């Protein structure tokens, strides 16, 4: 028996909705069977909390007296450069930006102790930030320099707008070379010394809606401790990767672009993060509710770690050289067990995204919905699925002909 969004929202408003997390639904389906579970449960909540480099925020500072045009100039927040190629006092602060004088990897492996993600975390925490900028000066925007304290309370808009978050599945990273390497997947010891992975697996939003039947443009979500929305599919959205019979992709596939008002988010779920030898980024908390419209959707949400597979990839040689390769497939139950076998060798595994906070986010979203504080939205448009034929391309490197005039 199918349900509609409106019927589920009516139950939420009355406080009657049955809401469970993506972990809890597994046991419910096992115990009661799919048909009964789909009938009884209205919403399944998901969660993830991991490093997401393609994150950032648009900020509008308001106009200074006299006015300054940051557009075309240079601007910094706590010494971290922000993008100014916009109107006079709009900037974009990206999570991976680092100060001009950061030593980067000159002393290898670099620490990258402070970057755009850290600035966003401090902004959300209500701390004052130093805005410093230089501009070229115009008749209507004469000021050429500014150095002031700014606070999230005082600025006009602070909008988290991230082009790619919530990756649907990811690689399991290993290192086949004989040297230790420092990657965005953490430190990888030489000669298959360890394996790192990054997914909330059975709790992860897009792994619970593998074919994007309910998560689409306009879907209301938990974002950074507050409310946000899915704005579009994310960049590098790759719905056509290989999938198992359950519809779940066996490698990184779908992604989401998300948006929300930073002023109502919490620093706990937007954490500036430093990856040794790699760079600065932000660890982002996202939770997405899935309406149990029918048995098919319910079946998707009941997916377990052992049914979710990913590819083991060598980050020593193959990944940096963009060579397509997989050393094999492992499932998340194996990865969470602490040991997998690759090329006949048993190697220890560790996650780089937080399962316990993913669980906390799914739990928080569940409480919001149960209390009637959070209703579900029907997407205004679906994001492209496997039928779209959209495939993630490598860069087409066409050489520039030298031109002499």
């Amino acid at each position, binding site marked *: 028996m199918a349900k509609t969004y409106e019927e589920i929202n009516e139950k939420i408003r009355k406080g009657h909705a049955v809401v469970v997390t993506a972990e809890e639904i597994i046991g419910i389906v096992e115990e009661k069977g799919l048909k009964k579970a789909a009938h009884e449960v209205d919403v399944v909540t998901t969660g993830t909390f991991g490093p997401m480099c393609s994150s950032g925020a648009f900020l509008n500072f308001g106009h200074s007296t006299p006015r300054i045009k940051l557009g075309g100039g240079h601007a910094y927040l706590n010494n971290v450069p922000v993008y100014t190629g916009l109107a006079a006092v709009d900037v974009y602060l990206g999570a991976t930006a680092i100060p001009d004088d950061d030593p980067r990897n000159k002393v290898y492996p670099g620490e990258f102790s402070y970057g755009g993600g850290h600035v966003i975390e401090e902004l959300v925490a209500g701390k004052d930030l130093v805005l410093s900028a230089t501009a070229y000066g115009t008749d209507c925007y004469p000021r050429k320099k500014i150095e002031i304290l700014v606070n999230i309370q005082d600025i006009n808009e602070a909008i988290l707008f991230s082009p790619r978050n919530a990756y649907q599945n990811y690689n399991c990273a290993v290192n086949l070379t004989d040297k230790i390497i420092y990657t965005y997947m953490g430190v990888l010891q030489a000669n298959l010394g360890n394996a790192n992975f990054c997914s909330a697996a059975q709790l992860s939003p897009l792994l619970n809606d593998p074919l994007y039947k309910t998560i689409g443009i306009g879907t209301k979500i938990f974002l950074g401790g507050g409310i946000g929305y899915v704005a579009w599919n994310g960049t590098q959205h790759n719905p056509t990767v290989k999938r198992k019979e359950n519809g779940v992709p066996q490698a990184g596939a779908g992604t989401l672009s998300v948006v929300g008002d930073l002023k109502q988010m919490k620093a706990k779920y937007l954490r500036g993060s430093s990856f040794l030898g790699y760079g600065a980024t932000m*660890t982002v908390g996202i939770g997405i509710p899935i309406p149990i419209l029918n048995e098919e959707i319910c079946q998707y949400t009941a997916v377990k770690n052992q049914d979710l597979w990913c590819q083991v990839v060598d980050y020593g040689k193959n990944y940096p050289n963009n060579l397509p390769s997989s050393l094999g497939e492992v499932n998340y139950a194996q990865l969470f067990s602490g040991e997998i076998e690759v090329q006949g060798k048993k190697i220890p595994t560790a996650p780089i995204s*937080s399962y*316990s*906070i993913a669980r906390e986010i799914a739990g928080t979203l569940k409480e919001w919905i149960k209390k009637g504080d959070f209703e579900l939205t029907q997407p205004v448009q679906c994001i492209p699925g496997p039928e779209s034929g959209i495939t993630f391309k490598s860069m087409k490197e066409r050489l520039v002909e030298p031109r002499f005039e």
Partner: protein
Amino acid sequence: MSVCRRIVLRFPKNLVEKPLVYHLVKDYDLKFNILRAKITPEEEGLLSLEIKGDKNNYSRGIDFLTKSGVTIEQLGQKIRKNEDLCTQCGLCVSVCPTPALAIDRKSREVIFDSNHCVTCEMCIKVCPVKAMEIKFD
């Protein structure tokens, strides 16, 4: 009664070239395992050891080292996990050479057991949110 302790020895410059640890075996029948060492001639030396042996012999051995001018600290208590900052991700677990950092199977939280810590400080370097801290006495 036998004991097993993990300690850090700090040798002042003038002691770096003396074979003091040898006496722990010879005179006090203590077994030791070197966990970490940083010794440069003409500079202060640092040696992390796990020492096993009879409790009385251990006390007498430590006494000998102290009287010789070596400073001794308990190891493991120097590294601390700041629970307010930790996101329970697991990156530290991937670099920890001992079972000191592990993920609890049920809560999926990162557990730090200082008894196993050899103060290699890899977790401090790798923690993306600087939740692993070193405590200076």
